[in-house]
């Protein structure tokens, strides 16, 4: 175990190196670029035995990575914002192809107008592509989530996107710990896919199908991604046993004891929310933090089971569902609680778009506004 003090992007690149990735294809985009720069440097310095392919666009980056994954390589790419949107077609291709790709998406606002700073519209708008989406909120969680992502992707044969906030996390230096090679190998054995595109194995990849053949593939993906939430939590526990590091299961909760108001968010806002919760507790308000770690598959049953009787869920979305009262988390939370916990109050807002600053004081003020509506 080595202690490191560096940025979130370096934490990501280090995890990719430590995992033993075979193939990386990438295209530069702010604020992701320093991830693949670092990886290119590890490869050039001989610290990492992998092939690095600079391509002409994100569409080609993910296409190349998908193909390399199909032949049995452990692969990685990273992107942000417009780059993720440009990958949209291949996101479906990769998930439909059941390829265990891991990709970092450094969250950034999308155009128009242009903006370089964080919000979650990029990832949220790719919700229905069949990818597992994790959200990390610290450099330690990024490092650990990338390793976890390979474990999960290779078990369930579904690609995993590891999201973290642009600049706020990607470019902030924090202390974090890496993991020894023997422990990584124990947790994540060498890739041994059940199938690969190889003349010895026969078969083809991605054929044209009639509906009777097409339908089972689609249902298998939705059933398997539904089960992936539990796989993530099981693997997280296994990782905890090995490392002592725990960032939460489906959620990370903060001061849930006796709480009435649950302040629900994801990304770095969820960490700032802990300060907001402390401030609200000082004001005599029974508040708790609830940070979502698995955006897709959204943990519907777990959310319904977690909230106590009479709880009020205050949802803070760093994205918009246009024309709706809040964002994607609000809609998903409502859908999760409908018919399960109909008595609970759920209210939400969208904020922090395009990197709008969200200090704890703002979160407290917004929480109090929502509490007024709840009364």
């Amino acid at each position: 175990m080595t202690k490191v003090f560096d940025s979130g992007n370096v934490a990501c690149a280090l995890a990719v190196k430590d995992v033993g990735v075979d193939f990386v294809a990438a295209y530069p985009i702010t604020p992701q670029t320093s991830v693949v720069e670092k990886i290119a440097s590890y490869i050039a310095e001989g610290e990492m035995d992998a092939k690095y392919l600079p391509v002409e666009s994100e569409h080609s980056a993910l296409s190349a990575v998908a193909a390399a994954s199909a032949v049995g390589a452990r692969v990685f790419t990273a992107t942000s914002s417009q780059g993720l949107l440009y990958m949209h077609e291949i996101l479906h291709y990769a998930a439909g192809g059941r390829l265990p790709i891991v990709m970092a998406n450094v969250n950034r606002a999308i155009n128009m107008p242009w903006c370089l700073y964080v919000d979650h519209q990029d990832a949220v708008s790719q919700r229905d592509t069949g990818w597992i989406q994790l959200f990390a909120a610290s450099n330690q969680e990024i490092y650990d989530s990338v390793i976890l992502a390979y474990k999960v992707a290779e078990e369930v044969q579904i690609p995993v996107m590891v999201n973290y906030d642009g600049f706020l996390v990607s470019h902030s230096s924090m202390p974090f710990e890496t993991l020894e090679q023997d422990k990584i190998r124990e947790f994540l054995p060498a890739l041994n896919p059940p199938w690969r595109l190889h003349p010895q194995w026969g078969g083809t990849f991605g054929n044209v199908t009639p509906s009777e053949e097409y339908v089972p593939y689609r249902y298998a993906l939705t059933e398997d991604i539904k089960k992936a939430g539990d796989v993530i939590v099981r693997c997280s526990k296994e990782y905890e046993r090995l490392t002592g590091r725990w960032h939460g299961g489906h959620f990370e909760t903060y001061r849930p004891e006796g709480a009435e108001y649950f302040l629900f968010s994801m990304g770095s806002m969820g960490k700032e929310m802990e300060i907001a919760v402390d401030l609200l507790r000082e004001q005599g308000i029974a508040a708790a933090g609830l940070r979502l770690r698995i955006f897709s598959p959204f943990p519907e049953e777990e959310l319904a089971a977690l909230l106590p009787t009479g709880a009020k869920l205050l949802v803070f979305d760093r994205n918009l569902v246009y024309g709706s009262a809040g964002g994607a988390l609000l809609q998903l939370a409502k859908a999760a609680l409908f018919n399960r916990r109909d008595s609970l109050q759920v209210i939400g807002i969208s904020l922090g778009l395009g990197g709008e600053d969200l200090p704890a004081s703002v979160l407290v003020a917004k929480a109090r506004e929502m509490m007024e509506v709840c009364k």
Partner: protein
Amino acid sequence: MQIVFEKPKALSDTPTHYCPGCTHGIIHRLVAEVLDELDITGETIGIAPVGCAVIHFNYFECDVAQAAHGRAPAVATGLKRVNPDNIVFSYQGDGDLAAIGTNETIHAAARGENITVIFVNNAIYGMTGGQMAPTTLPGQITQTSPYGRDTKTAGFPLRMCELLATLDGTAYAERVAVDSVKNVLKAKKAIKKAFQYQIDGKGFSIVEILSSCPTNWGLEPVKALEWLRQNMIPYYPLGVFKDKEVSR
């Protein structure tokens, strides 16, 4: 008091955000001088790319549309087809035109779109901090090729003018540089011709301008221009690669 020197009217009073020694400033000025001389600023629409010139709408006094990365020739096509009386130019770097937007560029040229493309080639992704681009020279050190571009794994640079010159729809393709006073004057002549061809309805015209990136090349401005002369010009020869008027 007699005014002896003025900046072009097509250039705004805004100080640019470009790094010291960057040649975007010179190229902006050349484009603006041409807009003034042809008296077309009022009817011109520029396309801002993704890259260092992403906010050139702050600097040009014409209307500007912002395109997604690489899509400038497609956006220019839409503008020009619907309103052919406008003069439409895209202003793109190599990370935009010769990478993610290669496809659009080739097809706009193949269709013979009556637009003008100003292509600023500095052999690197500038705005994202100096990564290897398709135009990066063999052996050139960048953030993603710390020991130099290895052509065995990263292939070879694209010579866009030569490539586009093979297309029947291309009316005019010339490569110039802004490394010396003489070459700057030649560059202006080429830019003016490219706009004139559009006014005359001749079809797709492109001026590729070899440019420096002192910050990401890690060189002082003057050394950067020397590097351009010694390394880029031999790989990207200057000259006219296609001129419909001459070949007729």
